[in-house]
């Protein structure tokens, strides 16, 4: 009787399975690369999935920057070797490839991540468990102060404060805040609220829509009904275009501002992008000689990513990230994580995209030159004002 209930040959099958699994997996270990005097730089970005376009830009900028450094002699006399991994817009994939960079490729530094959930997922793998320097090159919601982690994108105050102050100075008194329902928009808009109220303005509404809402008509109506002087919006894809289109076509009289408008994002909005206000660390019309020459060189060397060099794709941040790390290594005269980590705190770059940058000691964030810009109907931007270096209010200097 038992014979029928128990499937035949299960032990044999288990052995076969374990054997084949081991065989399969051992195919994944790679022979360690030959001991060349190169230093590996881990480049982690979303080459596929929803952020695949951003990854394309990131990869090209990383390649460009590393080539440039190698041409000028490398770091401490050693050439850099880029190890590119795809985090596929998925947190679980991101931790796996981050582990590969740290544990298998033994990279000296990891630069990367597009979305905040990727940063949060990989930073412990790299910086805490992996004891490797992690540079997060994106403008984001703030509050990243972990050890061995360095932020080279803009902090909320660097984008939000000048935008709101400009709007207030233009006589805008009432604000409507709208965003997608997750951490980044919530944090950005809470900063907006703080600055608006401090500056004597008032908030007439605050609303969030689900991340995958394709038709935000309800929100459009609420914005129109509010008759606010200004709309500060952080609605992300796929809602961005439909939302702004709806508000503009619905006859909204006020000014629309946000943190995500530039040459990279405007094309997905269409001609309704005209008049959108924002602050970024870079716009294409930034014309200091260094920036101009570097961007031109990039476009020439990377025709596949020409047009993808934009602030919202984190292109300037990627460029300066690798240079800032180089400067810290040279200052520490070592690739050792602890020493580089210490040197990083006060490192600076005289030449960078958009202007000179320096870490604000104790903040893990950069003093960044920022620009106030306005979008045009064709997706390009006009700089209203160059704002100069703005200090980050993060970590030790939280305000």
């Amino acid at each position, binding site marked *: 009787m038992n014979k029928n209930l128990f499937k035949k040959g299960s032990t044999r099958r288990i052995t076969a399975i374990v054997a084949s699994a081991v065989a399969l997996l051992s195919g994944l270990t790679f022979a360690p690369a030959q001991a060349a005097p190169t230093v590996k730089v881990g480049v982690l970005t979303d080459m*596929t*999935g*929803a*952020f*695949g*376009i*951003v990854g394309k830009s990131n990869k090209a900028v990383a390649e460009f920057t590393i080539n440039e450094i190698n041409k000028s002699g490398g770091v401490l006399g050693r050439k850099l070797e880029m190890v590119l991994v795809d985090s596929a817009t998925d947190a679980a994939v991101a931790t796996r490839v981050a582990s590969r960079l740290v544990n298998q490729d033994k990279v000296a530094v990891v630069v990367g991540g597009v979305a905040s959930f990727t940063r949060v997922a990989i930073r412990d793998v790299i910086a805490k468990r992996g004891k490797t320097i992690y540079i997060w090159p994106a403008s984001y919601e703030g509050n990243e102060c972990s050890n061995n982690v360095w932020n080279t994108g803009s902090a909320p105050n660097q984008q939000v404060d000048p935008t709101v102050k400009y709007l207030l100075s233009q006589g805008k008194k009432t604000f409507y805040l709208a965003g997608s*329902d997750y951490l980044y928009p919530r944090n950005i808009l809470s900063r907006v609220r703080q600055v608006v109220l401090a500056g004597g303005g008032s908030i007439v509404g605050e*609303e*969030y*829509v*689900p991340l*995958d*809402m*394709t*038709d*935000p*008509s*309800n*929100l459009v*109506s*609420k914005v*129109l*009904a509010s008759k606010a002087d200004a709309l500060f919006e952080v609605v992300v*894809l*796929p809602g*961005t*275009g*439909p939302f702004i*289109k*709806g508000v503009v*076509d*619905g*006859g909204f009289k006020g000014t629309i501002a946000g943190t995500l408008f530039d040459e990279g994002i405007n*094309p*997905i*909005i*269409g*001609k309704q992008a005209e008049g959108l206000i924002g602050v970024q660390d870079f716009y294409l019309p930034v014309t200091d000689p260094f920036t101009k020459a570097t961007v031109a060189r990039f476009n020439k060397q990377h025709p596949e990513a020409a047009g993808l060099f934009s602030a919202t794709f984190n292109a300037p941040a990627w460029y300066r990230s690798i240079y800032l790390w180089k400067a810290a290594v040279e200052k520490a005269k070592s690739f050792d994580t602890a020493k580089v980590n210490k040197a990083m705190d006060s490192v600076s770059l005289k030449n960078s995209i958009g202007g000179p940058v320096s870490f604000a000691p104790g903040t893990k964030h950069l003093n960044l030159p920022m620009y106030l810009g306005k979008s045009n109907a064709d997706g390009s931007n006009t700089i209203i004002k160059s704002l100069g270096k703005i200090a980050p209010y993060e970590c030790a200097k939280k305000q």
Partner: protein
Amino acid sequence: MSPTMIRGIFDVLSLSSVLILLVIGMAIIVGMMKVFNMCQGELVLLGAVTAFLCGKYLGNLWIGLLLAPIVVGLFGLLLERTIIHRFYVNPQGALLATFAIGLVMRESLRTRMSTQSSPVDAPIQSSITIGGASLPIWRIVIMFVTLLLALAIGFVLIKTNLGMKVRATLDNPDLVSVSGISTKWMYAGTYAFGSALSGFAGAMIVPLQTLYPNLGYDNLILMFIAVMIGGLGQFAGPLAGAALIAVPGAILGQFISPVTGQILVVFLAIIFMRFRPVGIFQGGR
């Protein structure tokens, strides 16, 4: 009436008509044919892509609106004859196979797109002002088209000879094959028709939304819930189901946060469906 109220009412009408338009094709394939078609969203997407390409290369979205149902209808015919027809006796298999088809379509588009999403301009971009509220004409067009389409299809299915044959075939395939109607082509034709309707819906709604690979997939769960609430086996039920979730969703969205509104609607729909005793989803094998 204040402009806010007018806009509120307009939103309810507009959001429901958009969902009903999206569900019409599904009402045919899932509702009447009882094929659990997980790639319905991608049929909508294919229609949207067709419209986008016509807008981009021919500069005319009207041609896109005309071509979308033809292209997607032919594609549906091809799908039915090559794949779907194998799974009429195996509903779970149909679900998985169409899920795979959807995945392939979605990811293929992703590799071809050079931006995260592309805006599509409506053929009519102006608005009219009623009582101080500026209302986009394209949304009004969608309301009327949806209404006309639903009535026309309902009429064909109930009143015409062809419609009766189709319903008879879908209700009892064995009986009809004896009486000389080719069941095979009746099924293929119906699937193609349902696809064409979805393709048309995609072309119509893409100007209100935006073209991106998950356009159909992000709408799919709501579409399915609409069909299941409405019940299977007939055409009108799913459309009523769409109205039944879109209207409260749109009204709730005006008073509470759209996030809570959406979760609440999905949640209530699940409970409602549990106690609605019709269709292959409820009992029966």
